[in-house]
């Protein structure tokens, strides 16, 4: 299906060209969440289509459907106009669809050639792998994309940019017709990005259809031919990149009907409670200065990887900043460990609650009292009556219903596990509570409950830091918003300055 690569039609010419691959009104639901709702997407040979959308717009779900990891609940996938199915990733590969991920999914301990040909290595006598031929073919492919990599090198000895090249070589080795690039430039330097652009041009000339997922508008306008915008799992716009401006794209990404209701809050903030000055880490963030007040909800917005969670982890003592000072209630404190943070009234509810939140093999009351054992024990001896009292108080406040506080947390539903985690942190009687993506992956009803609860905490005088990548949540809940980009504070917004456009502009740096 190698079509005329020079035929640069700027029509979204479904009439003039047959798309290599098309999604027709594809729907995907997860319990409680509709990830994709009747979205369509067409990819043409020799064309780059940029897929644009906020975090949570459904981009990765589409990638997973195209690579056979998820099965759509409705709609169909078409290859060359004929409906087909990808029951597994093998089937997607056989149909010529391949994905190059943000973090390449390759094998560090294998050689470059083995990585390129894993699963479809050339066979010699007795069905054994013909190593010599494999190396030769790998070398040919690498040369064809201008990569100066020895096929014998072990993958782990390569830099990120070269790993991307290996991933691309792998895509070519299986004769891919559709190449999905999921934020390929996220970890690359400017020079490496330029080289990638050249390569994308080459892939176009070879007639491959490319789906390019990126948050960076400059590169979208530089290399894409078409765009498709998703918002909240729905298709909101598609067309030729020549007919659209940055502003229009941003509007499509964020412009939304206000379907979520956020709790009413009187935005009365109290005294300063936390002052951060000059926080800096050698590789993760720099120049972080801000103040936080009692009764305030301070939103932290940014793209994934902007350094928000990394900064929060150092604020909580998991990692150490290289320099910077921290004042709580006017007093300078040094936090060297999470225990220090908890003792100073800072708690952190991490993003990955499954992994970092509850201890499922322990009963509810032991989970709740874990960070507060200093108060419920004397000289290292536990006082179980105190523990039960504390656990009962906070689980009742959160309306947690369980047969008994002796129930293992592993036997609770997800929503109740989350309540246990929140109860655990409230029981430490914190001054500052950091919530990292507090509503990620939970259904609308539970989201509203979490928002309600945050408003209540702030009303009680707690200072709340909310790390969130969801614009409605940031806008609906925050008194002020700090936008981070590439490890630095890009903007501090309050009041009317907090608009979807300003958030996206500062986060993407346009």
């Amino acid at each position, binding site marked *: 299906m190698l079509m005329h690569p020079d035929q640069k039609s700027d029509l979204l010419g479904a009439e003039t060209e047959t798309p290599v691959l098309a999604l027709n009104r594809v729907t995907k639901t997860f319990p409680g969440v509709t990830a994709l709702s009747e979205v369509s997407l067409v990819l043409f040979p020799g064309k780059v289509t940029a897929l644009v959308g906020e975090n949570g717009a459904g981009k990765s779900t589409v990638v997973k459907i195209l690579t056979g990891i998820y099965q759509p609940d409705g709609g169909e996938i078409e290859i060359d106009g004929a409906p087909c199915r990808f029951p597994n990733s093998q089937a997607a590969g056989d149909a010529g669809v391949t994905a190059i991920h943000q973090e390449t999914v390759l094998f560090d301990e294998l050689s470059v050639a083995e990585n390129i040909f894993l699963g479809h290595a050339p066979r010699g006598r007795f069905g054994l792998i013909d190593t010599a031929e494999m190396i030769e073919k790998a070398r040919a492919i690498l040369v064809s994309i201008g990569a100066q990599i020895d096929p014998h090198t072990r993958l782990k000895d390569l830099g990120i940019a070269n790993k991307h090249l290996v991933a691309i070589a792998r895509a070519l080795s299986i004769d891919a017709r559709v190449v999905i690039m999921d934020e390929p430039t996220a970890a690359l330097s400017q020079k490496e990005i330029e080289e990638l652009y050249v390569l994308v041009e080459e892939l176009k000339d070879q007639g491959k259809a490319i789906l390019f997922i990126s948050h960076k508008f400059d590169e979208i306008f530089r290399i894409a031919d078409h765009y498709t915008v998703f918002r909240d799992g729905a298709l909101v716009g598609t067309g030729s990149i020549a007919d659209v401006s940055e502003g229009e794209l941003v509007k499509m990404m964020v412009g939304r009907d206000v379907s979520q209701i956020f709790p009413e809050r009187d935005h009365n903030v109290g005294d300063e409670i936390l002052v951060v000055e000059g926080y800096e880490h050698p590789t993760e963030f720099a120049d972080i200065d801000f103040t936080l007040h009692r009764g305030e909800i301070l939103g932290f917005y940014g793209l994934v990887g902007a350094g928000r969670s990394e900064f929060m982890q150092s604020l909580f003592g998991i990692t150490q900043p290289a320099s910077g000072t921290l004042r709580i209630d006017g007093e300078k404190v040094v936090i060297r460990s999470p225990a220090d943070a908890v003792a100073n009234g800072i708690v952190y509810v991490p993003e990955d609650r499954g992994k970092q939140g509850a201890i499922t*093999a322990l009963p509810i009351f032991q989970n709740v009292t874990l*960070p507060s054992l200093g108060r419920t024990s004397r000289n*290292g001896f536990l006082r179980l009556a105190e523990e039960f009292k504390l656990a009962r108080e906070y689980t009742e406040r959160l309306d947690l219903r369980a047969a008994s506080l002796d129930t293992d947390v592993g*036997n*609770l539903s997800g929503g109740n596990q989350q309540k246990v985690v929140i109860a655990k942190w409230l029981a430490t009687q914190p001054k500052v509570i950091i919530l990292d993506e507090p509503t990620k992956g939970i259904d609308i009803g539970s989201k509203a409950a979490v928002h309600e609860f945050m408003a209540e905490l702030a009303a009680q005088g707690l200072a709340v830091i909310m790390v969130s990548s969801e614009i409605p949540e940031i806008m609906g809940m925050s008194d002020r918003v700090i936008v981070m980009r590439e490890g630095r504070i890009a903007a501090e917004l309050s009041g009317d300055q907090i608009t979807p456009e300003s958030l996206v502009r500062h986060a993407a740096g346009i």
Partner: protein
Amino acid sequence: MSKHVLMSREMLLTGAIILLLGIIASRFPAFIAPSNLVNVFNDTAPLILLAIGQMIVILTRCIDLSVAANLALTGMVVAMINVAMPELPVPVIIVISIGFGALLGMINGVLVWKLAIPPIVVTLGTMTIFRGTIFLLSDGKWVNSHEFSDTFKAFPRTELIGLPLMSWIAIAAVIFFTLLMSRTTLGRAFYAAGGNPHAATYAGIDVGKTQFWAFTISGALAGLTGYLWVSRFAVAFVDLAGGFELNVVAACVIGGVAIMGGIGTVVGAMLGSLFLGIISNALPVVNISPFWQLAISGSAIIIAVALNAQANRDKGRIILKRAEHAT
């Protein structure tokens, strides 16, 4: 609900032990005479002591393969001290053995904590180092029965209300560590650090330090057992208790200690030890070859692990409201 599961797991094991005794009694009734059961328990006491320490180490997602080597090295050290200073009273010897064993355990603990070396590698290394040290200390020579002082040899056999002191020490350790595990912040930290290290870190628990204390306890118990072993058998040599670390791990696994950490009890470790102890005492009596003994112990381990895996199998997400309280 954990109490129920653990209870049932321990009840199950108790049931298995009673069944085992029943089968043995049907062929050899004298085996379950109280005096013989006391002997079996006394024989199993060292395994119980080591299994308690190992249980705590496994609870924190580590493993201590150096326990038997620690036992032998500490045993050799106190044996040589006794030969050099026969008048040194036994309580002092016991304090030395616990302290020296704890020190060896701390070496493991520091390597795991500060250098983040995988525990299996650390303890495999120290196991060899400890054995080698015994050779250097003793020149490969044995310390034999006639070289020990009488009080040194008499201590574990001294009877108190019908039980030798050896058994009383095992019982005391079971009680002491049951309290430590259920009633102290350190005990809670062991469960938390193994159950979910990330969550424990966020709750202010230093996981590495907790693992350090686990190795220290395991080492202290190995040291104490070193003295008891050497004095009971009145001999110390390089290969003392060679390979015994595997029995210790096996006792833990049979006793319901999850090899992935976070789950286990002192009573479980004791029951697992007794199960193995009964098998190794009964089989020679009923005239079954020692090779069968190995096969039976091995089968017991696999069955125990299979049962645990069954019990811990992910029940899937609890979405239905009514399922939440039914579990």
